């Protein structure tokens, strides 16, 4: 477990983090969200001990974080770097050895990851001869080579093509299955929807919210429903009456419509179904929970 207690970081006159309290439990995928300049990268650099907090303490497994803990962390920074003149295998071995591995286990691990990401045939190629996607895989492997307990990924999906994004996301799921903690900073909200167990939204150096994704969506539900029906729009409008607001409606086929409605009184799925099923022939209906994009925008806008 990682625990931040009243962590602040000041650069000259600028407060990058202000008295931040945060707990990240083991074995989960933790989304760290926030607009540009919110303090996410500063927070990550404090966790990876690249920066020291101006005030406050970071605890790892109940004890104050110290430099020997870096071996338990794998880090893929937003601005990624590689030694372009080095060969793929040499680069991975170098990073592995810096993180405390002996040569033999570093080589074993490097070969494992190269096989997994299908780059074994490139092991003796110089990095500057690789395609961008291939180089990004090498960077990702570099953060995992020493089998860390906590993996911090700062914008891991940026610049990847869809195939590689899927490969990375699958690997993140796999890491979670193996009990690893993944801290995931991203602007890609759909990936947060799909993967994160908990999220923290940071803005202006302060914690805006920290919740489970499911409860966050639940708390910020808008009462919007999407339905497909047969009949006519007038019948729907009559059925909605004063309890619902019709947001939009479009005809899919002859006599078949798709509409979005919003409940005004906090009605649940069954209430909506019961009220509408007598007036129109409902074919499908689902509640539209807010996306993380919606929640994020709402929270950050409210902050402003």
């Amino acid at each position, binding site marked *: 477990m990682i625990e931040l207690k009243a962590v602040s970081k000041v650069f*000259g006159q600028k407060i990058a983090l202000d008295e931040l309290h945060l707990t990240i439990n083991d074995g989960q995928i933790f989304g760290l969200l926030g607009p540009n300049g919110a303090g996410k990268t500063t927070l990550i*650099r404090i966790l*990876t*001990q*690249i920066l020291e907090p101006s005030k406050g303490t970071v605890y790892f497994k109940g004890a104050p974080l110290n*430099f020997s803990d*870096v*071996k338990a*962390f794998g*880090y893929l*920074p937003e*601005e*990624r*770097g*590689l*030694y*372009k*003149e*080095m060969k793929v295998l*040499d680069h991975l071995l*170098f*990073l592995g*050895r*810096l*993180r405390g591995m002996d040569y033999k286990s570093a080589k074993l691990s490097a070969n494992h990851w190269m096989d997994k990401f299908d780059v074994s045939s490139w092991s003796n190629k110089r990095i500057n001869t690789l395609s961008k996607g291939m180089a990004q895989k090498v*960077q990702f492997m*570099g*953060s995992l080579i020493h089998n860390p307990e906590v993996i911090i990924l700062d914008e891991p999906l940026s610049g990847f093509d869809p195939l590689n994004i899927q490969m990375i996301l699958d690997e993140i799921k796999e890491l979670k299955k193996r009990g690893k903690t993944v801290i995931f900073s991203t602007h890609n909200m759909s990936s947060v929807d799909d993967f994160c167990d908990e999220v923290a939204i940071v803005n202006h150096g302060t914690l805006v919210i920290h919740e489970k994704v499911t409860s966050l969506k639940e708390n910020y539900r808008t009462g919007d429903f999407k339905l497909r029906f047969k009949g006519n729009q007038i019948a729907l409008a009559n059925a909605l009456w004063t309890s619902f607001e019709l947001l939009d409606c479009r005809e899919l086929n002859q006599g078949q419509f798709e509409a979005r409605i919003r409940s005004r009184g906090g009605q649940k799925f069954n209430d909506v179904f019961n009220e509408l099923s007598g007036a129109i022939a409902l074919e499908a209906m689902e509640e539209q929970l807010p996306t993380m994009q919606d929640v994020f925008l709402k929270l950050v806008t409210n902050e402003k």
Partner: protein
Amino acid sequence: MKNSWFIALRELNERLSNRSFRWMLFIGPLLVLLAVFVLVETSQQGVESMKVLVADPANILDGKITAHPSQQLEYDFYNEYLDHEVFKNDARFNGYDALIEVNHKVLDNKTVRIFYREQPSFTLKTTMRFDLEGRVEEVMLDQFSTMNSNEFRKIKQKLNVRFMDVDDPLNTSEEETAWVGYSLGYLMLFFVGFFGMNITRSINREKTNRISEVLLSSVRPNELMMGKILGNLLSSLLQLIFWIFLIGIGLWAFKEFFFQDYFIPDYLNQTQVDEQQMSSLGMKNTFQENMSLELLYYRINYPFVMLNFGCFFLGTYWVYSSLFTVLGALSGDESDGQQFSLPIWIFIFLGIYAGYYAMSYPNSEWTTFFSYFPWTSGMVAMVKICSGVSTIAYSLLFLAFAVQLCVGTLLVFMAGKVFKQGILSNNHRVSFKLLRSWLRKN
């Protein structure tokens, strides 16, 4: 420190994979050997024939010098005392190319000085020396001994013949060896400057390709910095050792295969003097007449000089590397690193000047200052060590070395502070204000 070692090895591997580094391993020593060859060859160039005045006020040689005079040498005798300054300036002696000064105690002190206006050729020097040796031997046999010449040669002392430029008679052997020290100091500063710039470049490259952040999530900034300093030291030492090794082999090969003629020159065969006879005259070989060869093969105590060169190389690298590290951390991009290296190069040029100054004015106050100033002390030490130092002066040189180590350590500590702040910063404007603020931060 384990991580510093991995970083150092990576730096070394990067240098080794660099084509220009590999080329320099061979081209550098070849250029030095070429320079040595040219130096030796030019040393034997000179005037091919001479008219020589033998000033013999005591008439010891009795107006004779050899029964088989060389066609290139014409001797005249002058039976009065003649100072080399008078010989140089008096119009009466303008027709002579050289003055042999036979002092009245020559049979006791076994010393003859030859003042030349222009450097005689290697062959002429050897001939003059040989003629003088032979004549002095005859005189001694006539005056003091009932022995035959073979018996006498077994007990006789070697005649010390010193060739001097009449315009610069004080050009002593110490100055020649000091030039060797100066050359070594120059080589030291060249290596320190060249490989020091690699530290700056390496830091800038890591800032540009953003690898620094990955590294700093695994190692402390000080470990990264020390790794860079150590890595570049290893690559410079590798280059240096390779140079020393190849130059050593080259000098040996020169001696064995190219400079053999200097031991038994053609004229000896012409005059039918064999090597044994020459040796019996007290002449080990004619090698000694070639100043450069003598300097290279006999007058330099290589183990002693190289041991000290190693020490001062490390000390000098240590004080300069911290400056190159600060420069790398401070600069916003690679061009900053190059532009702002100028102040460091000024220190290097000051070192080169200090070496020259120490040769010209070995006992001046400024030389004393340069010998303790950490950025120039390595160069001055090499000049002093090669010139020959007393035990006390030598221990003072080690004080200078200790100053280098202390100042270097302090600077590396300060460089660590700048490095810690600067390694993640790029595209910023370099300023003293920024440097001051980074130095203040913990």
